[in-house]
């Protein structure tokens, strides 16, 4: 209804040049102030709920802040002591290393698999394509926590279906195998979980981008005798490069800071096998009550993420041209 009405109004409208409403000189004060009033709630919310916690985090990282200071207040500044403490701790560096390895494995798998899946969807017939996309959307839609719970069930040692299937395939050693007791296999399960949850978004986005590549390019390449690998390397990839860049940055950020899956499945264990930076910061603050060290680790995390974020924004603004 509304659309029809609006359509009629457009037809009657004089052909005025497009410019934002209210762009006139000599407007009364309240009209000029209006936009600022409209964004004021956003600014206030951001200031208190985002900027202030960030700043507070930075402050705590320069203070001595344990359980005593949490209860009584009056934390004193200790300069860079906390940073010195974490930077001289071997455990911290092993966590940093593990976080990078964890991110690299996950993002590498996500990028390769989602590219392959996107190419596959692109090559399928309509019905099969819709089926696959439906499956991807389902995997995408399931809440992280539900997925995490299901994966714990899939990999259960006694009744888990994965062990059953492996034994059926002839790997007898998996009979009753306790996946979550071993560091490496817990790490692997978390990787599978994160990749399983991340591929749908990346694949569907890449597929959507692939549909924008003009068909003629492919056809002429085929006439010239180029095979599928060559077509991907010479046509699809160069055209979609900005899109690949954006998704790569997003996935790096998302994987790097992933917390829920690890915390719920293993809390960083067994041993320290799945301890990454966000989990480490949380753990050190919660179980040791060293909020100062936790804050310092969080600051390091944010700094590392900011570097990736800068690359992301550069890519995005190159894409969009302007804000």
């Amino acid at each position, binding site marked *: 209804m*509304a*659309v029809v009405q*609006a*359509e*009629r*109004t*457009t037809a*009657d*409208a*004089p052909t*005025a040049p*497009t410019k*934002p*409403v*209210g*762009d006139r000189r000599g407007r009364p004060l309240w009209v000029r102030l*209006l*936009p600022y009033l409209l*964004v004021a709630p*956003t600014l206030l919310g*951001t200031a208190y*709920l985002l900027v*202030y*916690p*960030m700043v*507070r985090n930075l402050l705590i990282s320069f203070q001595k802040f344990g359980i005593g200071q949490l209860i009584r207040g009056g934390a004193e500044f200790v300069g860079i002591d906390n940073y010195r403490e974490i930077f001289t701790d071997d455990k911290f560096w092993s966590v940093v290393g593990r976080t990078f390895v964890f991110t690299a494995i996950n993002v590498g798998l996500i990028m390769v698999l989602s590219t392959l*899946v996107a190419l*596959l969807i692109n090559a*399928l017939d309509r019905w*099969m394509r819709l*089926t*696959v996309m439906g*499956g991807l*959307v*389902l*995997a995408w*839609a399931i*809440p992280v*926590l*539900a*997925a995490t*719970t*299901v994966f714990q*069930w*899939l990999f259960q040692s006694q009744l888990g279906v994965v062990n059953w299937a492996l034994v059926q395939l002839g790997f007898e050693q998996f009979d009753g195998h306790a996946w979550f007791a071993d560091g490496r296999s817990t790490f692997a399960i978390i990787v599978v979980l994160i990749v*399983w949850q991340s*591929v749908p978004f990346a694949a569907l986005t890449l597929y959507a981008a692939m549909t924008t590549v003009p068909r003629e390019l492919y056809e002429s390449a085929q006439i010239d005798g180029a095979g599928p690998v060559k077509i991907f390397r010479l046509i699809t990839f160069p055209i979609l490069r900005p899109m690949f860049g954006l998704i790569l940055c997003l996935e790096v950020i998302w994987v790097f800071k992933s*917390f*829920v899956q690890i*915390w*719920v499945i293993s809390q960083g264990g067994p041993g320290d096998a799945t301890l990454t930076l*966000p989990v480490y910061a949380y753990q050190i603050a*919660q179980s040791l009550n060293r909020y100062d060290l*936790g804050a310092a680790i*969080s600051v390091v995390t*944010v700094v590392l*993420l900011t570097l990736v*974020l800068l690359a992301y*924004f550069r890519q995005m603004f190159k894409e969009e041209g302007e*804000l």
Partner: protein
Amino acid sequence: MRTRLHRRVLLNLLGLGVFAFSVFPVYWMVLTAFKPTKDIQAETPSFLPVHVTFSHFSTAVHADGFWLFWRNSAFVAVTGVLLALVVACLAAFAVARMKWKGRQAFILMVFVAQMTPWEALLIPMYVIARDTDMLDKLPTLTLIYFMMTLPFTIVTLRGFLNAIPAELEEAGQVDGCNQFQAFRRIVFPLLAPGLLSTSLFGFITAWNEFAFANLLIIKEQDQRTLPVWLSSFSNTFGTDWGATMAAATLFMLPVLLIFLVLQGRVTTGVAAGAVKG
């Protein structure tokens, strides 16, 4: 000819493989939820729903506090998203329809805010909530979910608003509306589908959030939300995987429904029709 047929078959098999791999965990969850305990513990699992039972759902629903946590989750998600919607509407209007100094900087701020690593803010949030006596209170979560969804909501609404030509409102103003009447009568109906899909996405974010709900609600067990409850399923259900899967299914259900509603909604219903005319 034969190689093309081979290619088709191979592609379709690969497609089926991807489909099976993405769907299986979800299928297994729902299947387990409906299986009698006897079948769950069977030596050889059955992959089809041979015997169906609702007893696990009954166990899950009657578990201590299930409905309470359900209500808590719904409360924080709905209030957070509504708040974000109202605030974002104002900001998006200012950004999309008005010229003012600082507009670019504001948009940049929203983009940056959208990428906030919330996981790194857990500790200061805990300290701040403790200082301001906001621990163990649901409104604290409302505020955090409001801020989590706000940037995304502004960006999307701005996108929807940009898609609605300003001429529509100008025409309305020529016909005697003021700027706000024009907005309410002309733009708002066109914006409604956008508002709906944006808020549903926000709802999903808030409904799924675990880390803050887990950290900020500690002593008052009655204020917990569903994800936190689900994460401690072994305390509630022990090794009763049927009930655990039933609980997970119930937790997933609203999200799934929203995804079904959104299918197509996101792309249709925007001003496409109005612009074409």
